[in-house]
């Protein structure tokens, strides 16, 4: 399906980097970001009080399926695993699980976001990139990378608030 480039481009911060939002009233985290919080929407207390919030990209498979009858533009990837991923911060994300045979995907599988091509606008059009998920059984969930002697420099935020990982 041909669509305008702008429609993809404006979502880049979300699709590349998992930028979500958090309600400063009730602290609920959302992805994609919302301008009003559904949890305290009754009196619109949250209007203008949503702040950017960075997801870590770490989570686990909440449900999954193996798509054989592909959506247009995904034919070359069939069969592919489509999943709902429960992120460490809370929000559920829809995305593909890659780098693991379908029969080894299970509910509860630890995954992390990985940067992949989402689709191409034909052979001559632009290429859209964004997140998918790959297995991540190894790293413990709250591990802080960096140097052992000096865990964080340059005011680098901890992974939870960091902006690197998606």
């Amino acid at each position, binding site marked *: 399906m041909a669509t305008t480039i702008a429609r993809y481009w404006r979502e880049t911060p979300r699709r590349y980097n998992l930028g979500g939002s958090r309600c400063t009233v009730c602290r609920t985290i959302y992805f994609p970001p919302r301008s009003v919080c559904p949890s305290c929407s009754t009196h619109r207390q949250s209007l203008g009080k949503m702040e950017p919030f960075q997801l870590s990209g770490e989570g686990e498979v909440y*449900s999954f399926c193996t798509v054989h009858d592909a959506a247009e533009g995904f034919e070359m990837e069939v069969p592919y695993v489509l999943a709902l991923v429960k992120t460490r911060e809370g929000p559920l994300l829809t995305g593909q699980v890659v780098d693991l045979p379908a029969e080894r995907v299970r509910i509860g599988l630890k995954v992390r976001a990985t940067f992949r091509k989402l*689709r191409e606008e034909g052979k001559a059009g632009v290429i859209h990139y964004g997140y998918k998920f790959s297995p991540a059984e190894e790293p413990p969930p709250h591990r802080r990378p960096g140097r052992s002697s000096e865990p964080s420099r340059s005011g680098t935020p901890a992974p939870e608030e960091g902006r690197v990982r998606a």
Partner: protein
Amino acid sequence: MREVAVIGAGMTRFGELWDLSFREIGIEAGFQALVDAKLSSHQLNAFYLGNMASGSLLEQEHIAPLVIDYAGLAGHHVGAIRVEAGGASGAVALHQGYLAVASGAYDYVVVGGAEKLTDVPDFTANRISGSTADQEWESVFGATLPGLWALVARRHMHDYGTTREQLAHVPVQAHAMGAKNPNAHFRNKITLETVLGAGPVAEPLGVFDCAPLSDGAAAVVLGPMDEAKKHQEIPIRIAASQVACDTMALQHRRELTTLEATVTAARQAFALAHRAPADVQVAEIDDSYSIAALVALEDLGFAEKGKSGALFAQGAFAPGARTVVNPSGGLKAQGRPFGAVGVAQAVEVVRQLRGQSGERQVPGARLGLTHNIGGTGATAVVHLFERVN
């Protein structure tokens, strides 16, 4: 609010109607309903058309006046309004028609639903139906409608022990019913082995877990209950008409295996009608996917949470049961022309309550329910119909 009756009903056969155009099927269903209601055209105040995607399927927007035009009613300048709510377009159109008559703004309206899916290739039709889910946060990642429902199925199996075999009972019963319905897209009986051996679409769902792409149209005529007898020997009262919505994307639901829109619409409908699920003898529910039917049975109150699979497999919703589900064959066997579905469900229930359903008649049915959803349940519509005398 005054009481509203269905005084006429009509529908085309559902299926691959290669020789019929959108205009033709729309008119056929409408005329059947008008003749059934013994209503002359000049009495008609308005026309509501449930249609999901004429723009992308036929490259024809503004489709409601087109149907009125070819029905020969353009000279009467009857107002024609298209209603879109994905797969629930027909049921939401019915809700609009109901409100118009109930409020007294209009006396007589036709509510139609029509969709022509075979004028585009299958993959295009699937893409368009997939666009009833969230394009930006689901479809863009390769999510298809059956894929999203497969996510619901996997979680239902995980949380409640629902089995692949239990899911397979849904299409098997649907085809058994469709075999008795001359309007059905599929009139062949199938076995559990057929379903379980079919090719995968989005595992755990296979080909037979998914309703087909069909052409078709259906229409009902609504009027005030106190005038209904002039038009129809057995008018059927609309006891409740409820629409409820939820998040567009599955990922934002509070619970994956419950459609809160269905729960809400059903709860409000039963409360308004002072009835309970156990009072319903015939129900036409949305079985666009086998798992959707099981989830709907729980959300509507016909089965306890998590028990629908086992109950269905035991025949708890088959002919002879307290509540017979989808005697038409449902979306799976009668067919799935998106915008027509919600109206066709009403046609089936009205005919059942009138006792006109022949081989598949549910004996003595007096209270009927229809349930229609859009996308993965962002819209849910529940209607209750009652035979009054």
